[in-house]
């Protein structure tokens, strides 16, 4: 672990300045992922800018949306009554994440910026294009049971971790940032980028751009939403496959729908094809089956993760049946 400087920021503008002026600087809030990455040599910084204690840790209810502060703790947001009622998928995704201790410490902004759990990325001795561009990808022909079937490239198939981001896709959430170019509103679906031949780039944020909040807009579908997480143990484990679904259902008629997946792709994965298979149609066994098939179109399974293609379809089917009350 390299030596680093630790500084506390007074306010978001100060935090941005303190990071922008130092190319090796990073923000730290809960530290639940960053400190492990630094210890393991997967990431190193010469300055950490502590952004705790600047407010922006509350859930506020507005006329058109709920605004979650960038430093709100995962546990607080998950337990928030309004979030649970109006955005159940978000609350469920947060509760399915990590452990109670981590949820008490980790923040919303930090959760969205966590790094992949790919064992090769986290092992400083293994080649990894994400950690050391150009060094190669150990997972392509290695142990890739946990890796992506969507959005991968010849350079990287690491899964984007976390549950919150997947749920944000299902409610059309918008990320609010403050950075060297001022404040920005970025739809969550535009925040993460595919690895392509630059897998070290995971998002569109500039160096020193800070997530100060997340907006959850009210919609007809967000209130009827659900998160299903399948994993290799019952708790404290990342998804093998997860599904966030939101439905605007009038009778059996699907007026609108969101379907997003975790554990299967290099970024939180929204399946427009699966949504299109349902939107404007009646929700029944055959449209659900069509949506499941559409959900996995274009999947590229690897040696150890082909089961994800089958498991994802079953998970989508299960969620849609449960959410839509289809027996």
């Amino acid at each position, binding site marked *: 672990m390299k030596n680093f400087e630790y500084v506390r920021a007074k306010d978001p503008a100060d935090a941005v300045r303190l990071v922008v002026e130092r190319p090796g600087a990073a923000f730290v809030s809960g530290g639940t992922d960053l400190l492990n990455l630094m210890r393991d040599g997967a990431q190193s910084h010469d300055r950490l800018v502590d952004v705790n204690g600047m407010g922006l840790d509350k859930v506020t209810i507005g006329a058109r949306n709920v605004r979650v502060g960038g430093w709100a703790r995962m546990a607080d947001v998950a337990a928030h009554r309004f979030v649970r009622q109006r955005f159940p998928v978000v609350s469920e995704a947060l509760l399915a994440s990590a452990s109670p201790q981590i949820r008490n410490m980790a923040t919303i902004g930090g959760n969205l910026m966590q790094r992949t759990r790919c*064992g090769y990325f986290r092992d400083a001795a293994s080649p990894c294009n994400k950690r050391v561009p150009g060094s190669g990808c150990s997972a392509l022909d290695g142990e890739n049971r946990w890796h992506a079937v969507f959005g991968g490239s010849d350079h990287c198939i690491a899964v984007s971790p976390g549950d919150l981001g997947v749920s944000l896709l299902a409610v059309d959430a918008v990320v609010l940032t403050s950075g060297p170019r001022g404040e920005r509103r970025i739809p969550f679906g535009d925040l993460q980028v595919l690895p392509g031949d630059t897998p070290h780039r995971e998002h569109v944020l500039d160096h020193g751009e800070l997530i100060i909040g997340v907006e959850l807009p009210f919609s007809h579908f967000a209130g009827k939403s659900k998160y299903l997480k*399948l994993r290799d143990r019952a708790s404290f484990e990342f998804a093998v496959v997860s599904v966030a679904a939101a439905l605007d259902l009038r009778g059996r008629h699907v007026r609108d729908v969101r379907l997003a997946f975790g554990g299967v792709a290099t970024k939180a994965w929204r399946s427009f094809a699966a949504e299109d298979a349902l939107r404007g149609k009646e929700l029944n066994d055959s449209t659900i089956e069509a949506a499941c098939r559409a959900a996995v179109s274009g999947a590229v399974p690897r040696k150890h993760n082909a089961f994800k293609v089958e498991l994802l379809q079953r998970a989508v089917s299960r969620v849609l049946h449960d959410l839509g009350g289809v027996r």
Partner: protein
Amino acid sequence: MNSPVGRAVPRVEGYAKVTGGAKYAADTHVPGVVHGYLATSTIARGRITSFDVSRALAAPGVLAVFSHLNMPRLTVPTAPYPKGFMPLQDTRIHHDGQPIAYVVAETLEQAREAADLVEVGYEVEPAQIALEDAPGEDFLPPPGPEGPYEVILGDAHAALERAEVKVDHTFTSPVHHHNPIETSATVAVWEGDKLTLHDSTQSINLTQGVVSKALGMPPENIRVLAPYLGGGFGAKAPVWPHTVLTAAVARIVGKPVKLVLTRAQMYTASGYRAQFFHRVALGGTREGKLTALHSFSNQQLSRTEHRIFNTSETSWLLYDIKDLHVRQHGVRLDISTPHFMRSPEGPPLFGLESALDELAYEIGMDPVELRLRNYTDVHPETGGPIGNANLAECARRAAEAFGWARRDPRPSSMRDGREFIGYGMATEAHTYRSRQANAVVEIGVDGRAVARSATHDIGTGTYTVMTQMLAESLGMPMGRVHFELGDTNFPAAGFSAASVTVPSVSVAVDKAARTAREQVVALAVADPRSPLHGTPVERVVIENGFLFDNADRDRRDSYEGVMGRYGRPVTATGRHINAPGYTTGVVFVEVRVDPWIGRVRVTRAVTAHDLGRVLNRTTARGQVIGGVTWGIGYALSEHTVIDRRTGRTVNPNLSTYLLPVNADTPTDIEAIFIDKPDPASPNGTKGFGETPITGVPAAIANAIHHATGRRIRDLPITQDKLL
């Protein structure tokens, strides 16, 4: 007085543990201590061709960097040092994670940073890592301490040919790591020629012996201390290089050195459970009499050690099978040395107990009944009893408590909503050998007593049960007695592994206490000032710290009175070599499987065990809860993932090596104890800790078969295998 033995006595060290008062090896604060960190190889096989420590030496706070270039030559000890070579002695790389440099710096962070700055070049040779990498290279190793790795009785192959019913399948289980919550740590402190080691070890005496041999110094100049351990499960029972190297470098730098292994280093710095392939062919009659067993297993070995650690001894002890052939092979691979892990019988029993379930279905017989018709208490070679006399009672009582009679044997026949319910069971068994243990008891002038033995509390409750034993043997209340362990200045005991601590040490404590007690009785009856003066010693009874004349209970004295008048402490020693033992039982589990998504939950477990006389119901039950929990991990999630191209572990951390968490564990675990004294032991105790994991993987796999009709013979049973 009622003895405290057998009661649910809370842990005597519990308060110290939950308040942080218990000091583990890494908690040891020594003035002037400096910190070690190991740089380790990133290749599995080859040679170091270039080595540059200049950047590391120039880093802030660095005091020294030791490597093959400057490390003093150390003697490679034989067993219990299991490695076959000592790191930092030459350029040969035997496995990934092998220490190649030992950095010493003022702070841990500085040492760790400098270790990253060691520049090494390798000539890489092709490596073989997994069993699949070396087909046809397996061999029968020469006999080990347990005896030969091949046992033949009668003619199993002919008997299988003739068998009315048979099953023949291959079962596999992956590499597992112990993952004790406390990673291994050593603090080495030299004062002149004397060395003190604060070491997280399951054997302070073995550590003393191995370091003595490696460094060429007399063992009496080495004191090893291990008052507390955060688990071990076998990881800390042998002596691994980090302890030896820390002792050696501390002498050179002239300062106390502390080394704490990281979690990731624990995956190569100590042992682990080897990958295991197991073909089991089992034959029987239509009436459910087992007639033939062919058990052929293959497991990983390192190139520098050929002892088998997943032993199949239980294959010929549990059931009365006249014709059997058990053969245990190993394959030399470019891996760090596998070793024993709670419990070595686990992998072989997964195959055997799964095969029995399969045979039961072939016959159309209840799996419990099949076992009841074949359990034996006759050793196939000696003809003497094994220790299985109460196994049938275990099976009957656990079946009753579990409600086994409610089971519809047809697969997928029991359902609750989306989930299919499965019941499964298996026999559990663990063998242990003889160990010598010594203890000393001292009764002070205040009438209080302390016993000491160089044993360990690896988290199992040794402090508590020895205190109970001491109180009973002396006839004192718990509050007046005290037990100390974990110091080589105390009378020697064996390692705390193989579940052998209780049957060896508790008897030594018992013997020492009884001798001391006799001395106090003799003092009392000889003392004219004692109300018991002149009483025949055989009439003196002791209860609750008081000595009575059994014929006239108004005549009484106390330890406090006798010792106060005597004015000097009384001491006595005890020694015991336990008989080899076999501790068995039965486990029943209920699983609920959602087959659509492959999700398995273990919702209930009932066990019954014959562990001889139960010293403490709480700590014994703790072993059952631990065994069932670990068995759930074994069956459903645990798997060390090793990249076969490089030999590097892909998941060397508790985030991705999936031990069960609370949510995986049933709240409903019932532990039944037969609680009859073992006739082979002077105080009736048997070794127990490891038994309650051994049958759990097969019981869960059998239950999953019952729930789904799917027979999974490859562990862990992850959801993808059930789709």
